[in-house]
């Protein structure tokens, strides 16, 4: 097991430098900046629309954790599979889901990625093998293992990447899933986004082992802890894990150290952490770190990055207009035909349908 202690949670005040020498070309590095900024600006707009009551229900923002999704998902092929949790906006955008469809989903419109039936916690797009956000903590892990089993039985070399938080690693499904995946050598990359809180309960209060990657040793599984706020480190670790899984050697547990800048959900008053703590972690902002790298290494100019930011702002504004103008889902979705792929008519019919 590799163990990276330098996971970026410094308190010195300086912006921690990203590891460079990634071997990536300028266009790719700039695209990571674009993706991460798109996630952030999209979510800032979500917060605004939530405050204006245009978005209902829960809103769990990924702001601060963008490098984890972008870095990890960059290691996947289009025919690889993704499962995630209810804080799913970042993964969806990193996978290239259309932000118009995402904003429309949040607005509860039929043009949404899940036809307005799922909302913030249930983004999905099967065309992109993005199998959805799941809202019962840790419960989507067995599903991801099942997809990996399906791939193996169909003799395909696709892998499955499943995201979950540190809070999910205390429940039974985590242990059942790691055991099944290792027992059957299934191609699963378990990505634990350790943002130090299970909702509002600090890591050291909720887990007997605070280095989550060490939990894999019970299954003799390859595991690694990495700086999840360094998009390039995250990508490198994900590439190693994907290679391991795709070559038939079995699953990997990656622990990505990160931090959520916003509350657990939009209603969170954050009594469990101080403003000073949040400010301290903000100095480890993954986007600011990537921006600094791009500028310091002469990969991009201030003007180029400003232009990207402006294009993103326009795209986000357009997504709001699209969502606004889209129709709501029709009554057919609350008929039995909306519940079953093959509804069975009975007599007397349910609800008189």
């Amino acid at each position, binding site marked *: 097991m590799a163990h990276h202690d330098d996971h970026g949670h410094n308190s010195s005040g300086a912006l921690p430098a990203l590891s460079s020498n990634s071997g990536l070309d300028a266009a790719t590095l700039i695209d990571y900046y674009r993706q991460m900024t798109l996630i952030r600006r999209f979510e800032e707009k979500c917060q605004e629309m939530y405050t204006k009551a245009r978005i209902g229900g829960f809103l769990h923002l990924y702001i601060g954790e963008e490098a984890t999704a972008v870095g990890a998902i960059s290691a996947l092929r289009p025919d690889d599979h993704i499962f995630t949790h209810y804080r799913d906006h970042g993964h969806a955008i990193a996978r290239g889901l259309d932000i118009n469809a995402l904003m429309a989903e949040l607005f509860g419109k039929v043009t949404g990625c899940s036809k307005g039936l799922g909302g913030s916690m249930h983004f999905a797009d099967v065309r992109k093998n993005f199998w959805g956000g*799941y809202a019962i903590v840790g419960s989507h892990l067995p599903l991801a293992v099942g997809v990996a089993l399906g791939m193996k039985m169909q003799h395909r070399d696709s892998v499955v990447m499943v995201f979950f938080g540190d809070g999910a690693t205390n429940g039974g499904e985590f242990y*059942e899933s790691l055991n099944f995946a290792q027992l059957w050598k299934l191609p699963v990359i378990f990505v634990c986004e350790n943002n130090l809180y299970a909702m509002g309960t600090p890591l050291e209060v909720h887990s007997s082992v605070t280095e989550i990657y060490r939990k894999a040793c019970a299954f003799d599984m390859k595991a690694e802890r990495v700086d999840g706020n360094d998009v390039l480190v995250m990508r490198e670790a994900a590439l190693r894990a994907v290679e391991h899984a795709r070559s038939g050697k079995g699953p990997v547990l990656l622990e990505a150290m990160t931090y959520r800048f916003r509350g657990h959900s939009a209603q969170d008053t954050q009594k469990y952490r101080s403003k000073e703590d949040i400010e301290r972690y903000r100095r480890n902002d993954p986007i600011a770190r990537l921006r600094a790298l791009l500028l310091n290494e002469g990969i991009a100019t201030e003007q180029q990055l400003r232009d990207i930011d402006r294009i993103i702002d326009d795209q986000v504004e357009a997504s709001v207009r699209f969502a606004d103008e889209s129709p709501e889902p029709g009554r057919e979705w609350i008929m039995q035909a909306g519940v079953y*792929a093959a509804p069975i008519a*009975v007599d007397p019919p349910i609800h008189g349908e």
Partner: protein
Amino acid sequence: MPIMTVREALRQALHEAMQDERVFIIGEDIGHYGSTYGVTAGFLEQYGPERIRDAPIAESGIVGIAIGAAMVGMRPIAEIMSVNFSLLAFDMLFNHAAKIYAMFGGQMTVPMVLRTTNGWTQLSATHSQSFDVYFAHMPGLKVVAPATPYDMKGMLKAAIEDPDPVVFIEHTLMYTVKGEVPEERYTVPLGKARLAREGRDITVVTYSRMVHLSQQAANILARDGIEVEIVDLRTLRPLDMSVALESFKKTNRAVVVTEDWQSFGTSAEIAARLYEYGFDYLDAPIARVNFREVPMPYSKNLELQTVVTVDRIVEAIRKTLS
């Protein structure tokens, strides 16, 4: 037509299903142990460990894995050895299997079958339960509980071919029940009740093992000239009440027999529908025969006073007719 047991009918259905490469079976002790109730005995040797997957004792994982595999085009059959253990997989079944099609706007399906079994024989409180009503309560699931070898085979085949998640409920005390099963391939559609016995005096509405006990009760009453009509619902969700209502309109009296607790149980829903749609035909209050509402006692003496017996069905019918 050949006569065979429920167990043999289920085995035939599974053998036929295994000819589809997408089908595999995952569960506890289905392979090396030789199958707890003998349904998959010999399958491991015939189909190999890739498709007959002996699983760790981890019900949530078993059902979750089946759901995931189903989402990407497999046709998994998850076996939960005893329905009592299915409680550990309720989150998978209720929050995922039942929701995925609707919640994601119809872009994914979960064509899996969960086979499990009710039953009791001095197994005491935690191993003698029925959760039919929990499954049947949940939109998004289809729930079937056949009674005869013919239906067991035909409905299991239909369940495996169905694009939605199906809970298939068997009964430990029915595996040796015999009946006619044709040699040719066939399916029995889900969501269709059947008339199990014709009679003009009273309607018994029931399903699963209680169909056989109701038949015994009807045989006893026939000696007194009482003609009992028996409706076998076969599927609990969606609930086809057409056969039961047709019968009730003729007999004007009904007894509902189900092997679960009475309060908020399956018999409550069935009786409610009889009242709702058959009120004008009602000549007597609808009676219900169910488990006594206690955790199942171990003592044989007490157990037999807790479960549904032929005597209790006979008594309820006589009372409803008087």
